[in-house]
């Protein structure tokens, strides 16, 4: 292994030479801002943009409104029905798609550089003038209901929903779309969601590829210039859970493998503890095959195919979460190990583990810039998280500054098995303390 160490050493020096891609801030003639990484290697342009709000604006009894709206944006607009709109995109060999989560409604466009102006015209049409043709609304609703129904048989989906509902309670993060809410959503609801989200102040735009700032500027106006200025205040507030004792919730389901989703309070993206906690989590469960959870539970004991943990820093709450799927008869053992590892972790972190985690997190940073759409997506997230346009240059310094003491301190502050909420779907599981779940009566229970 000495040889490897020598190579590593040389490489760390070489690493200093890596330069982050240059981020340009572009303003349209009317003042719409986008962040751009210009790269003419291939004749490809990618746009990724988001509008704050997402499911946060969903009426309480109409979860899924933002997702429904996102789906409808591709289902016909202007004078084009769904099929004609799709054909126009095909003729340009452009990909345009929309999606929504609890915090944002997002769009993604990928096109050949020569077709970019025409593709942007279609993007504007989709955003500014969706048709909501009754026939299309009916079709999409049926598809979403079918997807919902199918997901009732998936223990991982059910476990995730149980966890969210218990941890986040009535907060938007705790809600999930269901048969009833999807059936209740109307075109008027979707138009209202548009009204709230289609504001310049809510836009975050990342663009990458073969396009210059002077070409991009006018296109931004073309795509988004119709939106009114300002922003709609969010009805969503920060969330910290009231309960901090360990709880397991269990829903039985006749499946050969039990699935558990676990988690506890964490940090938001702008928290000063974010980087120390990132390193800590990498050591515990984020580092793939080298992490403690994988080593102990998969590699040494063969109890699972996959176990891991990750930081989930969302707009209104931060959590540390993870999941595991394991055989019924060894589930109790797996859970016990998980809790034990979680408990021992803060007091057993070694300086070598911290160095090792930092080596990966520093060295792998450039691997994230793997494609043009990925670059655009990174630019969009940097704006969503208020990281600053120079973040790519600063990021590795922020991480380098994290030392062993800081990682241990963060781990002690956050990792606490007494705060773990564990949602289990599959075999009946008995240990105390626990609660039988009765939150989702429509789920398959046998």
């Amino acid at each position, binding site marked *: 292994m000495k040889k490897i160490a020598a190579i590593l050493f040389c490489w760390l020096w070489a690493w200093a030479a890596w330069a982050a891609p240059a981020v340009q801030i572009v303003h349209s003639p009317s003042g719409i801002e986008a962040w751009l990484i210009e790269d003419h290697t291939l004749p490809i342009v990618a746009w990724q943009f988001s509008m704050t709000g997402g499911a946060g604006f969903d009426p309480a009894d109409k979860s899924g409104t933002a997702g429904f709206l996102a789906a409808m944006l591709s289902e016909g607009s202007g004078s084009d029905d769904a099929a004609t709109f799709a054909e126009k995109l095909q003729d340009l060999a452009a990909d345009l798609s929309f999606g929504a989560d609890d915090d944002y409604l997002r769009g993604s466009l990928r096109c050949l550089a020569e077709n970019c102006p025409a593709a942007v015209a279609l993007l504007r049409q989709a955003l500014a003038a969706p048709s909501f043709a009754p026939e299309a609304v009916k079709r999409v609703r049926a598809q979403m209901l079918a997807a919902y129904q199918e997901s009732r048989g998936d223990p991982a989906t059910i476990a995730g929903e149980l966890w969210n509902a218990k941890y986040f309670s009535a907060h938007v993060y705790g809600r999930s779309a269901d048969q009833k809410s999807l059936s209740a959503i109307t075109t008027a609801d979707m138009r209202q969601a548009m009204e709230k989200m289609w504001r310049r102040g809510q836009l975050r735009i990342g663009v990458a590829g073969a396009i210059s700032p002077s070409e991009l500027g006018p296109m931004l106006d073309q795509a988004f210039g119709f939106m009114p200025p300002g922003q709609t205040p969010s009805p969503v507030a920060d969330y910290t859970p009231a309960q901090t004792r360990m709880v397991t919730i269990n829903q039985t389901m006749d499946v050969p493998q039990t699935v558990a989703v676990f988690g506890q309070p964490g940090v938001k993206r702008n928290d000063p503890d974010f980087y120390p906690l990132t390193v800590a989590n990498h050591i515990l469960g984020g580092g793939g095959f080298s992490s403690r959870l994988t080593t102990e539970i998969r590699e040494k004991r063969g109890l699972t195919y996959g*176990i891991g943990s990750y930081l989930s820093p969302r707009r209104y709450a931060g959590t540390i979460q993870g999941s595991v799927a394991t055989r019924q008869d060894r589930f109790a053992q797996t859970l016990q190990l998980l809790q034990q590892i979680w408990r021992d972790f803060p007091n057993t972190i070694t300086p070598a583990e911290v160095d090792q985690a930092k080596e990966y997190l520093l060295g792998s940073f450039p691997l994230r810039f793997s*494609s043009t759409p990925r670059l655009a997506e990174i630019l969009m997230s940097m704006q969503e998280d208020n990281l600053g346009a120079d973040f790519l240059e600063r990021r590795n310094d922020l991480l380098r500054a994290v030392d062993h003491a800081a990682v241990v301190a963060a781990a002690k502050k956050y990792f606490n098995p007494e705060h773990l909420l564990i949602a289990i779907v599959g075999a009946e599981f008995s240990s105390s303390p626990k609660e039988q779940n009765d939150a989702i009566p429509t789920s398959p229970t046998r």
Partner: protein
Amino acid sequence: MVKRRTLLNSIVYPLTTTPHPTSPTRGEEKVWPHAVRSVCIEKLLWGMIIWLCLLTPAHALTIETGRLDNGLQIVVLPNHRAPIVTQMVWYRVGAIDEPSGKSGLSHMLEHMMFKGTPDVPAGKFSETIARAGGNENAFTTVDFTAYFQTIAVEQLPLTLRLEADRMQNLQFDAQEFSAERQVVIEERKSRTDNNPDAIWFEEMNAALYRNHPYGRPIIGWREDIENYTLADLQNWYRQHYGPNNALLILAGDITLAQARPMIEKYFGTIAPITAPPRPITAEPMQRVQRIVDYSDARVRQPQFLRLTMAPSRYQSLPGQVTADWQASLRLELLAQILGGGRDGLLYKELVERRKLALSAGIGYDGVKSGYSTWSLSLVPNGKTKSEKLVVAADEYLTSLAKAPLPKTVVERAKKQFIASFIFAQDSNFHLAYVAGEILHRYDDVRTGLDQIDNWDEAINAITPAHLQTDLQMILAEKNTVQGWLLPAAIADGAIR
């Protein structure tokens, strides 16, 4: 979030992988299905040839190929956009090579490849790559097993050394094996047993291929996984893992001239092996109708699937077109036109116009050593199985086969195919994957370059009349299996 349903996502051929656990930042990369292209130009010293493809003068794709004396094939795809490189080692062994009773052995060996050598003990491989800032994983399919790392280009000597080491020095520890066998059993549960779609597909595929090894699941039947011996794995490794049964691909900030001395250094001393010839199995002509219906309490939405044996690039049934890569590209284009998601003609007819279905699609992948499978998948607009929908789909396809497809529709799809080549170049991983999937099959990779060099010409040469003939061939094929996936309570078709 509830997402819109897509076309039976789980019912494509899965890459059987050992992904990292649930960490969201280290997901497996997806691979675009379409090919790469280049135009050959220039010859170089020491038997090495450079293919230079000029898509447009400003966007050249270069494919460099070489070969070591011990038979190791090398393909380099230089891309100097960022100082990183993706390394892949492809072995010509997969489910197709496995004897009856040993299904999944190639995949089990893929797992064991992370269990150490005398120099790099178990766990150290992944740890070393991680400390060097690299991502790595592996995948097994019906035809091949491949290992990859993406890493800063300065670290290439490290990844070359580690792959060369485990190509020749893998150790087989009984305790590691016994724990890893449990991991694979859990993997099988996660992928298949916990998922009614996957159980149904596995059974249907097994009914389609009763003689050909493609009827066995890549991950293996549970009974076989439980019965492997350590000697099975050792033998499988000795028989199939060697330089002359492998292809090394480098995609990224590197050229063959730069890489060759390093490759020589680490791989050059490995002795060649005598790999067994790859089996060529003919599937008997089907004489009896095969229906595979499956009811499961976890299912809420019925689905229909029909699998039809179709020509691949290398194997076809009597009565079908001769298997070659141009024929298989035509079928890929046809599948895209008819059933490529919401842009497909079937979706427009059955979902949008007649409102009989929630989704309708066709799947086909021709890059297979054995036969390919043409799949028609339908989700009825309702809670019960709908023979009316199946009849409507069949009638529609039959009506389409009566005349050439509309020229505008064909041209639109061709344009998209050509664009997909440019998009594929956007990622080192994708480019290495599409090149490797074609090229690893050849003792001399240059034999396969035609499929990349003349790819766009082959697409441009396709006419609506060709596609009409191909569709007639598919519709006439008798080697098919079909069935319904149903909720347990309505297995008899009655409404719950």
